[in-house]
């Protein structure tokens, strides 16, 4: 009797250890730190990860997958607490005047309080639509913090590049407008 109890306890302990190891392996294999930005750094051009998020202005939602094949797009990850985001979003707003009929500009307000975000848009005169990614899950798929992060997606849905230096903006805009 005592022997069977001891064997059962040992089997249970072994099962717990194996379970914890399996959990560790699963977590490492499914590490979501491999975002679009990291893929671009590695020379790849992944398909833009889909999202379907509510618009900040309350006019429904934007489903990224529904835009595939229709228009190239610029994706701007920003937040109202992010000081450098002001400069980049204003540059995109200026580019919107030139490319607005050929390229879709979409903002992704991330890890932000939506009322502050709406105020920020009005204050800085940003008119392209933004969606709210409050928990930052979409941002994580694209590479995570820091922001701003600006991506250029061709009409096919492939991510062409990410803005790193100032000159990237006109170069990538021309490239995706021709896609």
């Amino acid at each position: 009797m005592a022997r069977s109890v001891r064997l059962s306890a040992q089997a249970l302990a072994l099962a717990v250890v194996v379970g914890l190891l399996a959990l560790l392996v699963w977590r490492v294999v499914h590490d979501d730190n491999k975002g679009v930005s990291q893929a671009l750094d590695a020379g790849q051009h992944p398909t833009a990860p889909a999202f379907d998020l509510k618009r900040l202005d309350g006019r429904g939602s934007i489903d990224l997958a529904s835009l595939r094949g229709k228009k190239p797009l610029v994706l701007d990850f920003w937040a109202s607490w992010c000081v450098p985001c002001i400069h980049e979003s204003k540059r995109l707003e200026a580019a919107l005047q030139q490319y607005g009929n050929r390229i879709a500009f979409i903002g992704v307000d991330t890890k932000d309080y939506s009322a502050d975000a709406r105020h920020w848009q009005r204050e800085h005169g940003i008119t392209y639509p933004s969606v709210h990614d409050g928990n930052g899950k979409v941002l994580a798929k694209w590479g995570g913090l820091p922001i701003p992060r600006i991506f250029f997606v061709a009409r096919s849905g492939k991510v062409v590049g990410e803005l790193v230096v100032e000159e990237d903006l006109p170069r990538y805009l021309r490239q995706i407008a021709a896609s």
Partner: protein
Amino acid sequence: MNRLAAVLVAALLAVPAAQASEQHPTQAELEGEVMCPVCGTTLDQSSSPAAQQIKRVIAKGIASGQTKSQIEDRLVAEYGDAILAAPPRHGFGLLAWWLPIAGIVVAAVVVGAGAWRWSRAREPAPRSVQLDPALERRLDDELRRFEG
């Protein structure tokens, strides 16, 4: 008995305190229970712009007379469950609440069972040794001589 009374009194005192905290939360209390979404710490340990933003939201909520649950629900609606330092009390988050309790119960059962088995397995106390009558007489004689 005295200990039981002390525990009961402490429990009775804790209930109104929890109700007061729910109805009239303080800024410091909530800053210790809400996470900064970009730093991985609670708000009270961060001065980042994102943390400052949420601190302002909490201050506005308190000033407008919102309860603790209302403020927390608003933050969860904006930032998701991960904005609260404590895991949610539903779904997978329940595991974090019940696993430690289950662990304590299992440990208590194992220790109790071990103690029970150990106490049953102990050898009975040896009986008093019966001396040979001749040897006992001799021992008495020796003791008398030693004392005399």
